């Protein structure tokens, strides 16, 4: 197990194995996406209160989950990088930021589209919307900081500190905002035992969530591969792969 992890942390091995994984992840993502969309948009019955418009939930809710999940993952990778100084961890963290920010943006946009028919307004200053918006700011702050520092290693380490500070703050921000104002419907899936969402809606929702996770994995590996190549462009194995001439 440890040996495998050590091997995985070497850029060349990572580059090879991720190259093999990406088509699989992408294919599975496409299949689950189509299945989830079919079940969610065609098969699932209309909601007795919200009619057809609730169907945006199958995009909105997984996107919102992903936005938080990716931030937590980035925190884990940043911690690994700061503690054990594993370069690959910071590659993964910085490659994740843009994807996380896009999921956050997607959650906000779909939420806004959903809010218009439900609440009669594109935007309300409700607790969850506001904390999602703040999460977007945290992502954008991270991206801005990382892109402002020239040296890649320094940028990744500085970004890591920022992410960890953000993680300590997220619960505080979340609860302070919640306490400040709330209008959003409560979480309906996490009530284990008797979820208040019907099974015919829950299954497509979970399939969509899996599909989004696979999408994230496929894209983050693609981005990480490019980042690894760029950082290792002076390395022997990269030069060998592309022929001596293209390496500077």
């Amino acid at each position, binding site marked *: 197990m440890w040996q495998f992890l050590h091997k995985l942390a070497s850029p060349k091995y990572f580059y090879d194995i991720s190259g093999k994984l990406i088509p699989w992840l992408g294919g599975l993502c496409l299949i689950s996406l189509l299945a989830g969309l079919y079940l969610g948009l065609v098969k699932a019955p209309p909601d007795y209160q919200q009619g057809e418009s609730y169907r945006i939930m199958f995009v909105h809710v997984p996107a919102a989950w992903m936005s938080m999940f990716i931030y937590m993952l980035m925190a884990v990778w940043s911690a690994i990088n700061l503690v054990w100084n594993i370069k690959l961890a910071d590659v993964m963290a910085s490659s994740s930021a843009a994807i996380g920010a896009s999921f956050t943006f997607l959650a906000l946009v779909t939420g806004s589209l959903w809010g218009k028919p439900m609440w009669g307004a594109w935007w309300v200053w409700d607790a969850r919307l506001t904390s999602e918006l*703040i999460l977007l700011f945290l992502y954008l*702050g991270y991206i801005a900081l990382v892109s*402002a520092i020239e040296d890649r290693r*320094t940028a990744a380490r*500085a970004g890591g*500190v*920022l992410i960890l500070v953000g993680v*300590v703050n997220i619960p*505080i*921000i979340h609860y302070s905002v919640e306490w400040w104002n709330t209008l959003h419907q409560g979480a309906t899936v996490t009530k284990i035992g008797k979820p208040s969402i019907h099974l015919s809606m829950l299954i497509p929702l979970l399939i969509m969530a899996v599909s989004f996770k696979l999408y994230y994995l496929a894209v983050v590996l693609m981005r990480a591969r490019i980042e690894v190549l760029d950082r290792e462009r002076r390395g022997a194995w990269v030069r060998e792969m592309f022929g001596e001439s293209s390496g500077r």
Partner: protein
Amino acid sequence: MFQAFYALLKRDLLLAFRHRGELANPLLFFLMIVTLYPLGVSPETEMLRKIAPGVIWIAALLAALFSLENLFRSDFEDGALEQMLLSAQPLSLLALAKVLAHWLVSGVPMLLLAPVLGLLLSMPEKAILALELTLGLGTPLLSLVGAIGVALTVGLRRGGVLLTLLVMPLYIPVLIFATNAVTAAAAGMPIAGQIYFLASLLMLALTLAPVAIAAALRISVS
């Protein structure tokens, strides 16, 4: 260890008082932002009373950020910061001394000016008292959290705007609890809950922020 803390605190205070002109700048900034609101929104007493807590607190946030920007700048430029990194004393303690010095020269004057601003915006007395209490707990919090952002951006040419982007989201809980307490006090309601929350946030920042500042400084300066 505490000798080093006091020495650095004394040095920073001395440096601040040798540049008296710069000392007044954040205060003027604070005053001017608050002055803009009656001009921009409306001079009606009722309206001003309603928005006063938010206005004063947002102005305080901006003034704190504005004054924080140069917290480590001159030390970074003349190499003193590197000496601190190399010294045998714990860097987090030294960072705490610097933040404390900064708060004493920028936060405390804001505390003194705030009641006057409260009167300008025709706040009731009870609310002014609550404002002082929240600013007393809140401004050191702003300095501590902001210093992490400053430490991360210290080596960068145009750190100012970036600093705002990094630190503002982290300031939101302080803003929420503080303005809520002031509004509640103006309505004659108890504010103990909000005050306790701010106090516990301050304790959390006092214990964790110096460590984060030290880690950030080591990364930015190396």
